[in-house]
């Protein structure tokens, strides 16, 4: 019986590709599905593109493929990656250049058409309000400040690119799980309205899209995380999929990490809203019928996915400029570490007022006490901390105020409370971006999808 093995590539822009080697060498994979884009990543890529029009893609795809391609070619492994970001053609050129320098051959497909920033007016003229999905607010308030707007494409163009002989499929924004569903639909010839198989592919793609989080990484727990073996060599997850969509979920032999009922269900619900209607461009998945059978030895059988018809509208995520953040930080040692941070915050607030600065919001956090746990921090030992860091951030429309805010802090070193540390320079203003999720009728986007094939 034919099975297809798909291995996880990266889980975000900046993730490590070192573990992918084990999946290719001894994981028996035919495909690597590599997810370089979080919701936030397009904002980073947009900043790159503003500085250099040839940029705007996830640059790590180039060294990743430069290192892994000889091995992948030897094992007949294909790569599906969304590293194209805001500039899939730019990514292809960079990869093609690297391959030509080394004399390597490959067929690269580039999928684009997800970017709708230049089409906002056209879409609105076609009757799309593009209002905020959650708040219902109209787009006019952010239209002029928009930096990027991309629709989440589905798996069909990926499957088509593979049918046309691609070894590497490079996309812009597609649903993360489409990187896995695409090759499965292609290999098994799944019908695009076979909702249960679509749902199975979506489930597996979702479990693979965060690399190590699907195999024991970031196992959110007290105590149990310490039992995950050999983090340093944690293997990325692999799905061995059958024609009916059921799968064996595992990882390469001889690697660290853990694939179990516990680690997989954490990833299943990760960044999911309604689990009975997990919407993707290709299908709406109900996670309530899934079955996970843990066989032990880092093997979990997955079956029972059920799907409902794909949505009529695609999701767009746009990002818009939304002011500036100023940041200042200073650390204090015992004694009274927390009290000295609190006093410093008070001093800084006074200086801000005296300068006539009026930030829209001021955020005060105490690193070592509550910067990650917020109001749920336990105050029992607050006044006996060995050391504590004050971190203050402000929100302002004025970039100069955001820059000036950070410069208030070094002075505290000689003229504030005693036993300071962390005088490591001043943090410049950081541009803040608002995220604008909205919906658009799929036909309006899909008519502009293009698949280019290049043999190098």
């Amino acid at each position, binding site marked *: 019986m034919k099975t297809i093995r798909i291995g996880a590539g990266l889980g975000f822009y900046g993730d490590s590709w070192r573990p992918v080697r084990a999946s290719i060498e001894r994981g028996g994979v035919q495909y690597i599905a590599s997810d370089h884009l979080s*919701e*936030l990543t397009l*904002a980073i890529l947009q900043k790159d593109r503003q500085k250099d029009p040839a940029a705007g893609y996830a640059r790590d795809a180039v060294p990743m493929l430069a290192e892994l391609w000889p091995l992948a070619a030897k094992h007949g492994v294909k790569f599906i990656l969304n590293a194209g970001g805001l500039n899939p053609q730019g990514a292809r050129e960079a990869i093609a250049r690297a391959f030509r320098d080394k004399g390597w051959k490959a067929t690269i497909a580039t999928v684009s058409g997800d970017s709708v920033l230049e089409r906002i007016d056209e879409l609105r003229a076609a009757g799309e309000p593009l209002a905020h999905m*959650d708040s219902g607010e109209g787009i006019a308030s952010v239209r002029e400040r928009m930096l990027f707007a991309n629709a989440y494409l589905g798996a069909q163009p990926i499957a088509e690119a593979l049918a046309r002989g691609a070894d590497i499929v490079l996309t812009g924004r597609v649903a993360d799980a489409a990187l896995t569903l695409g090759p499965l639909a292609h290999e098994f010839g799944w019908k695009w309205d076979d909702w249960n198989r679509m749902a199975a592919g979506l489930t597996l793609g979702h479990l693979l899209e965060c690399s190590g*989080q699907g195999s024991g990484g*970031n*196992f*959110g*727990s*007290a105590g*149990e995380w310490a039992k995950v073996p050999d983090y340093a060599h944690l293997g990325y997850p692999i799905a061995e999929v059958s024609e009916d969509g059921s799968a064996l979920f595992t990882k390469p032999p001889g690697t660290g990490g853990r694939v179990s*009922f*516990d680690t997989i*269900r*954490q*990833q*299943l*619900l*990760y*960044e*999911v*809203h*309604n*689990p*009975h209607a997990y919407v993707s461009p290709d299908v709406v998945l109900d*996670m*309530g*019928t*899934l*079955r*996970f059978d843990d066989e032990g030895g880092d093997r979990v059988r997955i079956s*029972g996915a059920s799907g409902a018809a794909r949505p009529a509208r695609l999701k767009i*995520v746009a*990002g818009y400029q*939304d*002011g500036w*953040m100023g940041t200042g930080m200073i650390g204090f040692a015992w004694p009274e570490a927390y009290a000295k941070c609190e006093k410093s915050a008070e001093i800084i607030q006074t200086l801000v007022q005296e300068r006539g600065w009026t930030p829209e*919001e001021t*955020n005060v*956090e105490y*690193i070592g006490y509550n*910067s*990650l*746990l*917020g*109001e*749920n921090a*336990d105050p029992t030992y607050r006044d006996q901390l060995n050391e504590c860091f004050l*971190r203050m*951030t*402000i*929100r302002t429309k004025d970039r100069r105020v955001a820059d000036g805010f950070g410069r208030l802090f070094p002075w505290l070193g000689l003229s504030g409370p005693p036993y300071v540390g962390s005088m490591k320079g001043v943090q410049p203003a950081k541009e*803040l*971006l*608002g*995220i604008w*999720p909205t919906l658009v009728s799929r036909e309006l986007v899909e008519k502009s999808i293009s698949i280019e094939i290049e043999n190098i």
Partner: protein
Amino acid sequence: MKVALWKIAHARSGDKADRADIGLFAYDAATYAVLKREVTVARLTQHFAAMGAGPVELWPLDNILALKIVLNAALQGGAARSLRMDNLGKNVAAQLLRMEIEAPQDLPRLLLK
């Protein structure tokens, strides 16, 4: 008796635009029944009140002994405009594990040495 969730369950959180979301998982079926009864929208709303979160949503998943929790409007507009250290809401799950609920003292996990 009062039991902190970290003793009987595990959890992971993440972000989508302005939403923080948490998966809360019982280690066993007996504990799942307790979580389902005790971890309510009202308790969650109170536990996360300081985050300024909008409505809390909750779905039980019997097939994987889990509760799916969504805190709307909890991330200051989203990770890219948040002023917080934890702009991605990765530690919202840790915050949840600090919640105390009423639980029987003979839950399997509590009897483990």
